[in-house]
């Protein structure tokens, strides 16, 4: 390469090159120091000022030919890119290979007269390390406004870039922390809900405890007068019968009235028994039993109600079920409760399907956990007895509370709100559980889950 340093013409010590392919020039080609007299051998004061500024500038300031050959540069160029021999090199070489095509494009645009300001690219230092650059390119014009070259100003923004990256990392970290906080907030809300629920349960338990004590206390006092009413009523009924009917006794309407009184005593007794069976601490009299026999016995006991309620029973029993350890009377009580509820849920009659099957519990099942304290655990073998009615189903708001004591959807006088609560207590005493849900096709399903005896 024809390389002619023109120190005399280059008062600030810029590297200069011989005229490039664009043709001979009087000095070392266009440069930022163009503003000098063509004839003067000494730079004028203004040129010296500009040169001093350029020299003090930390940015690389490069004048190159239209073909991109470096013709002049300031001392900042060496500070940014390293190396000392810049003149004659292609300015594109200062840019990494990956970004070079883009730079060349901008260079050509500058040759065509279009300036590019502060675009970000990646350069390479003489020692090989990469430099983040903010680059501006502007056409350099000769006499008559003809573009004679391109001025390139490149600032090392590596530190800035690192700071930006640091800031971005910080921002990311903040985003992650915010997400973590959000999760913590959700968890906090959830545990708050749990605390509220536990508090409610405690209140409920306290309420029950006092109900239990109250019930046990008043039961004796209430049952004795009930016993008297019953004994008296039965005596009067027997008198009526002995007298050969109502006409002879002179009280024609007495017998139906007495029978109504007797039914009322039965009802009051039932309410008290319900209360007590829920409130009393019950112990199980467990024996091994066939769950289907217990279902059949419950159906037998409820047959009158089923018949008058026009409820048809469908059985789908798994014949291979193992015997279960249970208090037969209490499980019978649970089944009868569920039968009566199903009858009440179908006032116009309907179908009640009773299905039994064996199952290995999975984590997807309700009320199933992994902890030793969980009533039923994943992998455990259980027997499910499902009562599926064809009624209207259970409203969602009731599903949550349906096993709560004293919660009833039945009309006043029809239910005590204790049947399902008692049922749940009994099933829990057996180490099992009971679920209520709605069937997609309509109607409700109550599932009693009992442990296999082999467990």
């Amino acid at each position: 390469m024809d390389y002619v340093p023109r120190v005399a013409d280059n008062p600030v010590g810029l590297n200069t090159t011989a005229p490039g392919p664009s043709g001979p020039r009087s000095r070392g080609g266009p440069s930022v120091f163009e503003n000098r007299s063509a004839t003067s051998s000494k730079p004028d004061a203004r040129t010296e000022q500009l040169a001093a500024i350029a020299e003090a500038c930390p940015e690389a300031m490069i004048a190159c030919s239209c073909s991109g050959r470096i013709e002049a540069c300031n001392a900042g160029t060496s500070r940014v890119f390293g190396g000392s021999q810049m003149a004659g090199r292609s300015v594109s070489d200062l840019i990494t290979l990956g970004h070079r095509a883009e730079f060349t494009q901008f260079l050509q645009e500058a040759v065509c007269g279009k300036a590019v300001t502060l675009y970000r690219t990646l350069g390479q230092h003489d020692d090989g390390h990469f430099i983040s650059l903010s680059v501006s390119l502007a056409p350099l014009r000769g006499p008559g406004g003809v573009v004679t070259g391109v001025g390139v100003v490149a600032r090392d923004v590596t530190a800035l870039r690192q700071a930006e990256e640091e800031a971005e990392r910080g921002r990311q970290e903040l985003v992650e922390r915010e997400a973590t906080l959000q999760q913590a907030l959700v968890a906090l809300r959830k545990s708050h809900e749990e605390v509220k629920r536990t508090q409610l349960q405690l209140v409920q338990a306290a309420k029950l405890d006092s109900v239990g004590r109250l019930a046990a206390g008043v039961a004796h006092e209430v049952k004795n007068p009930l016993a008297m009413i019953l004994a008296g009523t039965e005596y009067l009924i027997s008198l009526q019968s002995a007298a050969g009917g109502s006409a002879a006794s002179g009280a024609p309407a007495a017998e139906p009235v007495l029978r109504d009184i007797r039914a009322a005593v039965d009802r009051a007794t039932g309410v008290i028994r319900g209360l007590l069976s829920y409130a009393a601490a019950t112990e199980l009299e467990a024996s091994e039993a066939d769950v289907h026999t217990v279902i059949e016995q419950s159906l037998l006991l409820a047959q009158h109600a089923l018949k008058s309620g026009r409820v048809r029973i469908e059985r789908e029993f798994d014949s291979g079920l193992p015997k279960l350890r249970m208090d037969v009377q209490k499980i019978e009580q649970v089944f009868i409760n569920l039968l009566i509820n199903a009858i009440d849920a179908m006032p116009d009659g309907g179908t009640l399907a009773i299905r039994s099957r064996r199952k290995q519990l999975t984590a997807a099942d309700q009320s199933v956990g992994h902890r030793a304290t969980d009533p039923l655990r994943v992998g455990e073998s259980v027997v499910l007895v499902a009562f599926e009615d064809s009624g209207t189903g259970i409203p969602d708001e009731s599903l949550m509370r349906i096993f709560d004591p004293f919660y009833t959807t039945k009309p006043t006088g029809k239910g005590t709100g204790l049947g399902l609560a008692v049922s749940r207590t009994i099933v829990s005493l057996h180490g099992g559980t009971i679920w209520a849900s709605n069937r997609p096709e309509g109607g409700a399903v109550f599932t009693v889950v009992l442990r296999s005896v082999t467990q």
Partner: protein
Amino acid sequence: MERKKRILLIDDEPGFTRLMKLNLEANGAYEVQVENDGRKAVAAARAWRPDLIFLDVIMPDIDGGQVAAELHAEPGLRHIPIVFLTAVVSKNEVVKRGDVIGGQTFLAKPVTVADVVNTIEKFAA
């Protein structure tokens, strides 16, 4: 003619014992005596020698458990079957007391006359 079975009702509720006595006597097969004071129950049993005793559990001054224990302690009375007839609601409680005192069975109040008669026929010799 077969001797009527003697039934002793020990209960502190005069209304109940009166009505139950009426019911059992109306049946025609039973003689019934009533004792509303638990403290006099043993003396009544000793004097009358019933075939079966219905015994209330919760009474003032002395409870059915103590009465049963005293009856059991007396050789001449120990053979008489005792049936607790009580408003005590917990079966466990009755069983617990019954185990100690050798009670035969129990009926929970309110009780139907039919249940009382069935119980007599089952336990009274």
